[in-house]
């Protein structure tokens, strides 16, 4: 077992869990905002083992889920163009836009869509198809945005004329702010996203403790990471001293990754942005700077963000704010399933409703 595998060690985890069971004597509602945490909590079985006092609420934690329907409508329109090839992470393939259309159905309708693992691979698609414009769909939080920014810089270095990015990147801190700004939100603590934090560091979360007095822990994705974060939260709650703690020090520097941030800042600039289920959040998105306008798909002729109708019947807002469990939504497992998602929480496995659907045995 190497030093990183120890973070999965069942014996160590059980011991931590016993400690948590002993110490969590007060009710605690915590939210994790990162979908990878969501999946880890469910997939590891940790959720079924948490103390009865602890309630797990899944946040808006998947950049794909929160891609707004207007944004989906926008790239579906682009996909229809004969001279366009869409390059995308697999995550976006099933995300529904207006009228249940998605990249999957667009493909069936004749659109050319290439799934890539890395934005770098989209450059190769562009090089291989000089007669068409390759549009990479830039989605993701601060972890992914620097990779896409670096790719745009590379495209310029390689003098690629037929590569563009449709930039719908989003930022985590403004979303947390929006959640807490709502007086109805019922969240006692946050588990903060480890890989976003690897880029942005700890400082941008300071307001969670300072202004909202919500204890928050940056941590990793192994069961040990999550358990230790929960123990830390319980301790902070007991001591009455909320803070933002970095418990993922093997990866996250308090100052984050300044190189990645510099690349991101060179190419992108923050703007107000639309979030599925949450609406327009100030300063929560990124757009491509003027200096890289030639690589901006949004500036192609005829590209706009169409209006999209609001979601009828979806209770995601309440789910996200911890006021309702996914299976309490009247649409859950009826009109709304992973095959026919209604709201953002059902869109990818990382949404709270989808995780319930996929992992919960006792529904």
């Amino acid at each position, binding site marked *: 077992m190497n030093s990183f595998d120890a973070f*999965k060690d*069942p014996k160590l*985890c*059980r011991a931590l*869990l016993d400690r948590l069971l002993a110490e969590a004597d007060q009710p605690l509602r915590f939210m994790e905002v990162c*979908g*990878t945490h969501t999946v880890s909590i*469910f*997939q*590891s*079985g*940790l*959720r*079924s*083992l948490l103390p009865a006092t602890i309630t797990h609420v899944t946040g808006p934690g*998947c*950049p*794909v889920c929160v891609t707004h329907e207007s944004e989906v409508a926008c790239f579906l329109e682009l996909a229809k163009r004969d001279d366009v090839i869409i390059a995308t*992470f*697999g*995550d976006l*393939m*099933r995300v529904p836009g207006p009228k249940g259309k998605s990249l*999957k159905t667009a493909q069936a309708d004749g659109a050319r869509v*290439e*799934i*890539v*693992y890395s934005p770098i*691979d989209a450059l*190769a*698609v562009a090089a291989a198809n000089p007669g068409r414009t390759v549009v990479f769909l830039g989605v*993701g939080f601060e972890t*992914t945005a620097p990779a896409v920014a670096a790719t745009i810089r590379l495209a310029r270095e390689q003098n690629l004329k037929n590569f563009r990015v449709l930039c719908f990147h989003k930022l985590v801190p403004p979303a947390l702010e929006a959640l807490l700004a709502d007086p109805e939100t019922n969240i006692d603590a946050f588990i903060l996203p480890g890989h976003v934090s690897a880029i942005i560091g700890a400082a941008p979360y300071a307001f969670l403790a300072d202004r909202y007095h919500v204890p928050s822990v940056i941590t990793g994705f192994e*069961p040990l990471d999550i358990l230790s974060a929960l123990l830390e939260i319980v301790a902070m709650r007991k001591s009455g001293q909320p803070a933002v703690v970095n418990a993922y020090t093997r990866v996250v520097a308090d100052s984050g990754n300044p190189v990645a941030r510099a690349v991101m800042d060179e190419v992108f600039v923050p703007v107000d942005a639309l979030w599925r289920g949450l609406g327009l959040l100030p300063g929560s998105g990124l757009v491509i700077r003027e200096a890289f306008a030639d690589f901006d798909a949004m500036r192609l002729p005829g590209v706009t963000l169409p209006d999209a109708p609001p979601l009828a019947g979806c209770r995601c807002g309440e789910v996200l704010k911890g006021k309702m469990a996914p299976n309490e939504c009247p649409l859950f497992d009826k009109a709304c399933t*992973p*095959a026919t998602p209604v709201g953002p929480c059902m869109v*990818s496995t*990382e949404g709270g409703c989808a995780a319930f*659907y*996929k*992992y*919960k*045995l*006792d529904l």
Partner: protein
Amino acid sequence: MDKVLLDYGSGGRASHRFVADLFFKHLGNDILARMDDAAVLSLTGPVAMSTDSFVVDPIFFPGGDIGSLAVHGTVNDVAMMGARPLYLTCGFILEEGLPMDDLARIVASMGEAARAARVRIVAGDTKVVPRGAADKIFINTTGIGEIMVDPAPSGHRAAVGDVVLVSGNMGDHGLAILSTRAGLSFDAPVVSDSASLGGLVGKLLAAVPGVHVLRDPTRGGLATTLNEIAGQSNVGIEINEADIPVDPAVAGGCSILGLDPLYLANEGKFLCILPEPQAQAALAVLRADPLGSGAVAIGRVTAEHAGKVAMVTPLGGKRLLGMLEGEQLPRIC
């Protein structure tokens, strides 16, 4: 000619030459050589019949090709009913322009796989479609065999208390295919497990005729197959995550792409559900064969949560192991 032409599918002399030069050469036997509209076979007792079309891309992959896969896939489905696979038919749909060398390699590989599986290819059909109307080559095989035990194993027969065995590592075929895909390319020391299971199933049933269920976890992987059986038999199935054998490279490849090896296809593995008292005997037979050397028990059949599959995690938690929804796609979140 070095490429397949439309004329080779015309039914005329060009077709006859093509069939004789290629298919008779590699697949020929007395029955096929009759060249009547149908093959005449003698079969006794209840028989199992199964069909599959093979459209795998790429047509050559680490550990096999579409030809051997087409033999293994159908032989295995017939074997899963407790039958001895005897005869196969094969239908080829070829794209005009397919290199003859590729086709010859595939047909030779089919012949070899059929001989190894002790099945005879007794009827065939070849169509050639215009360039662009198919992707290189598709192969349908349909197989038939005599059922060796009564009652035959079936997905409907899983019973509470039964033990669930798998014959080896999960996900090798699926990951071997993924590793060849453009845009995802990584180097994985993994080859497809594609193999004929007919012989091993024969040995198993000779020693342990009371097996309840046999099934090969192909498309949809182990998770989907277990869900199908839980549904057909209306029982719960509980498996232990830590006991499921997965090659470290398959686990590694899946972690990069955000995939779950339990939903990846296998083409040379099967799962066996049988009464607990016979489990050790079955494992002994399986482990004695190279195709079952990695056999282990991974769980049991329960009365609880009927129709569902529960997974007990290393942490001791329990969660649903759902069915695959659509195809698994690589993801970054």
